[in-house]
């Protein structure tokens, strides 16, 4: 639906991480930050 509304679907990510898996959580967040940095500011931020 995000894509249909013109928002890159890469900007949203849903992952299941257990509360006992801290390193996985960190890894996941870091990866996502890199993705977002590449994408640049969201078109929504201009509103």
């Amino acid at each position: 639906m995000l894509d249909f509304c013109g928002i890159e679907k890469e900007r949203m990510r849903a992952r299941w991480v257990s509360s006992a898996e801290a390193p996985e959580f960190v890894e996941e967040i870091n990866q996502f930050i890199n993705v977002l940095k590449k994408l640049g500011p969201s078109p929504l931020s201009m509103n």
Partner: protein
Amino acid sequence: MIDTIKQKISGLLSDASVKGVVALKTANGHVTPCVFQKEDDLDMLSLGDMQASGDTRYPLNKVLITIARQYPDDVFGVLVRGCDERGLYTLYRLNQLDPDKVVPIGFCCPEELAKACECKKPYPDDPVAGEKTKEIFQNRMEEIEGMDISKRFSFWMDQFSKCIKCYGCRNICSMCFCRECSLECEDLVSKGSLPVDIPVFHLTRAMHMADRCIDCGLCEEACPSDIPLRVLYKKTSRIMNAEFGFTSGIEKQEKSPLSMLGPAPDN
């Protein structure tokens, strides 16, 4: 067509197989919902065609829900087009209506209306009147899908910016029967200023329509700002179909994949 329907309703009323029939009447130059209980009143019956076919529709299922809650033991008839019947099936599935207490009186939409709606099933399963016409191709949705992403973005943001937060889309929707609504949850949608939170307000509603929307288009007709809501929900419906093979209201007995626990169904 209307005479055949009148005969049908007349029959149901005369043998007392229903307590009343939820349909439309013409009065004072306007079309309004009406519960017919006497055969004599059927002169006023309307199919909701003022200037063009189906240009004056109402959420009759919603009226029926209200009545059914007050008279849970009685059986009522209801006038249905293809979309209304999809609505009935969905309301049965969601336990808002009891199929044993409802007698649908179905009729087919003419081709021109089916085209205007881009309707995937412009007829009920068992019509009393009218000819079944073909499924119509979803041009409006394809057109938006065909835009490049930035154009799509500005198209929708412009549309959503017109919203005046009247809740008309929700209030007219027969599938919106919840007592508590996410649109009125301050943690999701902020209140008190216009334009509304964009695109949160409209996408929240779209998400909630995913396994419900039966594509009747009343939301778009009710919208005072002409936001093409129907196309938005057609898209959620298409995603549901692509991912789960499910389309709300097409099969009478089908469960929604969103309301099942356990592994995904095979369909």
